[in-house]
């Protein structure tokens, strides 16, 4: 079982109920804007606490209200690519990339620093401040930062927005490789039919 998500969660006035299990390595989440897709990712990452339910990823229980399990975010080891990037403004790109990397056991890393710089095409940016990056550049750094933390699973919130077709293709190929070779579970939020169709057949529709 890659993901078992069975939660009840409130954001603002919206109430969100989800009850799915998925064996697929990549689970897609689709739904209209404001449906609660990001909120689900926040629950899985440990940044929001559902009112009820259970979250199990790859056999590890991250949250179980009934059994009072609620792993703090740093022990969940999610590789979260935020919809709004959230690069650390006071750290140069290089330090942003290595922030999570330095906190993980080298034995657990499954992707190389140089490989990430390479397929994301951000090698020339490591000395830059995040505030000087273009939209797509920041997006790629955010992806790189998440991958380098050697996460046990990935939460991708519309990861390929702001990227041109060629770059997108390259990143898609890496995601496919991660799916096939490393079997890292992923949740992918996307509005692109293309992306979803290509990466997964398993869809959760909310809202």
């Amino acid at each position, binding site marked *: 079982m890659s993901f078992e998500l069975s939660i009840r969660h409130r954001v603002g006035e919206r109430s969100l109920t989800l009850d799915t299990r998925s064996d697929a390595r990549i689970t897609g989440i689709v739904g209209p804007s404001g449906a609660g897709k990001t909120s689900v990712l926040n629950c899985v990452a440990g*940044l929001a606490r559902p009112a009820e339910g259970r979250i199990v990823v790859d056999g590890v229980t991250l949250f179980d209200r009934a059994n009072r399990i609620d792993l*703090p*975010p*740093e022990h969940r080891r999610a590789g979260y690519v935020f919809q709004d990037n959230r690069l650390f*403004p006071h750290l140069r790109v290089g330090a942003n990339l290595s922030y999570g990397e330095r906190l993980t056991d080298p034995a657990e890393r499954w992707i190389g620093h140089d490989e990430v710089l390479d397929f994301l095409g951000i090698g020339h940016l490591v000395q830059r401040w995040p505030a000087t990056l273009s939209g797509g550049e920041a997006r790629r750094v955010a992806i790189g930062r998440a991958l380098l933390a050697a996460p046990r699973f990935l939460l991708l919130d519309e990861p390929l927005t702001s990227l041109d077709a060629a770059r997108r293709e390259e990143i898609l190929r890496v995601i496919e490789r991660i799916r096939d070779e490393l079997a890292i579970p992923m949740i992918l939020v996307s509005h692109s039919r293309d992306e979803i169709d290509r990466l997964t057949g398993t869809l959760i529709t909310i809202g």
Partner: protein
Amino acid sequence: MSLGLSESEWAVVVLSLKVSLVAILATLPVAYGLAWVLARRSFPGKLLLDGLVHLPLVLPPVVTGWLLLLVFGRAGPVGGWLQETFGFSLVFRWTGAALAAAIMALPLMVRAMRLSIESVDRRLVAAARTLGAGPFRAFRTITLPLSLPGIWAGAVLGFARSLGEFGATITFVSNIPGQTRTLPLAIYTGLQVPGAEAEVTRLAIISVVLSLAALVASEALIRRAGRGAHVL
């Protein structure tokens, strides 16, 4: 290099610097801790704590000095204990002057730091947590560096305030040359003597120069801390 200062004036300058620097360095972590608690936590008695921190600002310094004397004097609860346990007294010592300076600087430091901590985007802390940083590491690597402008601003405010501290100091630790006669006390002494305006002016200029130097340093540090800030 005497800069036209007599030996005893030099001693005053050196003592002032020692007192202010020790006061600020020792207070920085305390002030930051208080600022963080006031910015990020809510608990019963928070307002009381806030009020307590502001107390030295609103009370006339003489009263603060008097309260310090009551608490840290030999007959006071803390002072008596210090004396008995460590054979150590703050009264009439430069350490007491540093304590007075620290207490007077505290509210200014806490406010500046708190303002900066409050403007740190908590979503960045959340991001750090997902990357494997525990609460303390996230604090150290995200909140702390992002609030550096407030830390430097607080430090320079506090340093300037310490350099200028007079009322609490003279009340608490008196005006002893070499121990507690800091610049403001020396200036005050000068002001009491008719016709000593020249000396007073010289000492006042030194105060100003010292605080200007602190300002220059803090401006550079603030600029450094803000390097990654919004460009366009």
